């Protein structure tokens, strides 16, 4: 089996990291739901928590889900493409060897 291309390794890493990040954000959001505050104004920590929740719900979770699915699809596509390319290359290699031997035979005959 052929070693994966570095770009394929990067795609796989993106897929895994996106899934791990999605899992981490989901658990963090569930923990944050239990946090409460009191007083007239929320503290800076509470505001940062809200900002993070806002960022996660609106931006990070869809983006990470998209990244995991898209990179998985890209991996499947590149893997099947490289397999098809290798098969075609093998067939061409056999055909080229036949052609070279035929050419050599004709060239030897002409030189004689």
């Amino acid at each position, binding site marked *: 089996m052929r070693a994966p291309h570095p770009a394929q390794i990067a795609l796989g890493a993106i897929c895994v990291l996106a899934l791990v990040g999605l899992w981490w954000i989901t658990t963090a959001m569930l923990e944050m739901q239990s946090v409460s505050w009191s007083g007239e104004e929320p503290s800076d920590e509470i505001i940062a928590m*809200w*900002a993070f929740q806002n960022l996660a719900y609106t*931006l990070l979770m*869809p983006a990470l889900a998209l*990244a995991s699915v898209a990179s998985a699809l890209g991996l499947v596509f*590149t893997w099947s493409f490289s397999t098809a390319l290798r098969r075609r290359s093998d067939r061409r290699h056999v055909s080229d060897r036949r052609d070279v031997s035929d050419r050599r035979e004709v060239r030897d005959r002409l030189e004689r």
Partner: protein
Amino acid sequence: MSEGRSAQDIDPRFDPRFQRGYVPSPESEAASVATPPQNVVRSPQAPTAPASGRIPPVPPVAVRSAEPAEHAHVAMPPTTSEIRSADAAAPDASVDPAVFAEPDLDGVDEAEERRTRWRWLWIALGAGVGCVLLGVGLFWSYASDPGGYMGRPGTGYDATLAQFAMSLAPGLVQAGVIGVVVALASMAIFGRRRDSGR
């Protein structure tokens, strides 16, 4: 009208066998079968007979062959064994052996094209990463502003601009993610094609 024509009235310009009054003899029958008469078929160049009555020579056209079918010469393509024996017997000296040499596939243009393609792929990858970082930064800059949560005027928080930026940021991030994935997949494909010698 032609009822009274005799054998002397046979028109020499045409085949006598097909004219009224023709009496076949064994010699003439054999001769007509083996070699057709000179003036059996008129050539297209002489559509009409001259007025002098003298028949110009016409190239012979074979109407019928008396040769048996097994002796008739029919143009057939040479067989493979005939070609091989002919090639082995007399090699064609007019053919240059260099014609059969291996072609040189490593061109300068191909290398330049490949370099340009990879440069654009790296640029696309960088642009995708840039879009992701820009979107996250844009979103965070407004999401972390306390004015957006408190609703206090005079803090420098522009609600319209914040809404615009926070709507634009997800699109930027998702477009960047797609760009990164497509660029990486293209790199993998082109890298494989280069490895396989194309």
